[in-house]
């Protein structure tokens, strides 16, 4: 059920993105009502139009729109990327009030746990000077959870928390990076870039039953992304990014910082398809 829900949400967001980028690609869905005499003629015409032609039409509309809107954004190349991320949350519960307690001997794991991600990004150059990246992808985050301010339930022994952090999330990840080429000797084919930029994660998965009592987790998470990318003669690019939370993933008074280290590889879409 969850997989179905996630798939639905993913398709929904993709349709929003496509709808947002092109003026008329989805216009056949939102056609206005037409007069009965022209309706039969239109229906015959629509049946003749193949799916391939529709896609071509969508592609052309999209290209025209992009050319008009992004005049200074040149040399755009579409890449597909995938990789694994290691994530950790640090949690400060503050004066959070709850009827529930969680024995931290079971939950306090100050470790980075592995997840994975896939997506697409566009690399280009703005104004012939500034390399940039825009992209979006889906991410499965699994995180270790470190509680900074455990509470005591004396006379019971041990450390407890009134909040249990969720350690698994499925997110839609949207980002924009500025890339800076690092000058190295003999680097005509092999290029190193430093990247930095904002990253917004939209939580698509639901919260655990423990957090549905007060709906502690926010839908959006803002993070700063810095990293290094190595472009091997245009064949592939490997990258290492570090994402530092700027906003808390939970509502006040709980503060959670979700940080990740991501290692991945990207390949030009035209080399695959």
């Amino acid at each position, binding site marked *: 059920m969850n997989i179905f829900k996630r798939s639905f949400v993913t398709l929904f967001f993709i349709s929003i993105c496509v709808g947002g980028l092109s003026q008329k690609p989805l216009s056949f869905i939102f056609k206005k009502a037409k007069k009965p005499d022209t309706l039969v003629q239109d229906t015959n015409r629509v049946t003749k139009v193949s799916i391939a032609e529709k896609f071509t039409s969508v592609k052309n509309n999209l290209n025209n729109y992009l050319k008009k809107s992004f005049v200074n954004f040149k040399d755009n190349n579409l890449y597909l990327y995938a990789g694994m991320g290691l994530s950790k949350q640090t949690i400060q519960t503050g004066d959070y009030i709850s009827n*529930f307690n969680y024995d931290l001997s079971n939950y306090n794991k100050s470790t980075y746990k592995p997840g994975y991600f896939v997506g697409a990004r566009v690399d280009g150059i703005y104004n012939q000077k500034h390399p940039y990246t825009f992209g979006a992808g889906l991410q499965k985050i699994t995180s270790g959870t470190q509680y900074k301010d455990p509470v005591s*339930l004396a006379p*019971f022994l041990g450390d407890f928390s009134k909040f249990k952090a969720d350690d698994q999330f499925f997110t839609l990840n949207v980002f924009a990076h500025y890339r800076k080429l690092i000058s190295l000797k003999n680097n005509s084919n092999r290029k190193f870039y430093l990247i930095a930029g904002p990253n917004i994660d939209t939580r698509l998965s639901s919260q655990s039953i423990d957090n*549905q*009592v007060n709906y502690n987790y926010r839908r959006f998470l803002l993070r700063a992304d810095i990293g290094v990318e190595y472009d091997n003669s245009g064949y592939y690019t490997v990258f290492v990014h570090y994402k530092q939370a700027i906003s808390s993933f939970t509502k006040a008074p709980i503060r959670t910082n979700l940080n990740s280290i991501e290692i991945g590889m990207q390949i030009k879409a035209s080399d695959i398809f």
Partner: protein
Amino acid sequence: MKNKLTIFFFSSLFLLSCKKDAGKNELNLAYQMISEKIWYLSYSQTITSTKTTEKNYVGQSTYFIKFLKDYTTVDSDGLKGVYNLEKTNDILQIHVNAKTQGQNTIEYIYNVESLGASNMILYSTVAGVTNKFYYDTNH
């Protein structure tokens, strides 16, 4: 433009409409934590305005109560009956209706101070005296 606004409106509605009743969720979570376990009394405290008296039952033969999945309960004193989880005046409560071995009916309500997967603190206050009961599942 109108289409974009429509999509934005419905997507926002979709994202924001996923909340269920939080009160019901709290009772469901409490039920999940409490049920199908034997809760042993480990400590008790009697708190008045002037002093606190504590008793320790760890490692001793002590009172226990079972809360079963079908909302029935049985305890070490031989009381059998049914229980329910309620929220009254913003306080989470365990409400028990039971019968003694002599078939006398007993009804009692304990307030929940804190509830976990293996620890539970209940309390009741009568005439300015608060009795706290510390239960755990690992006796």
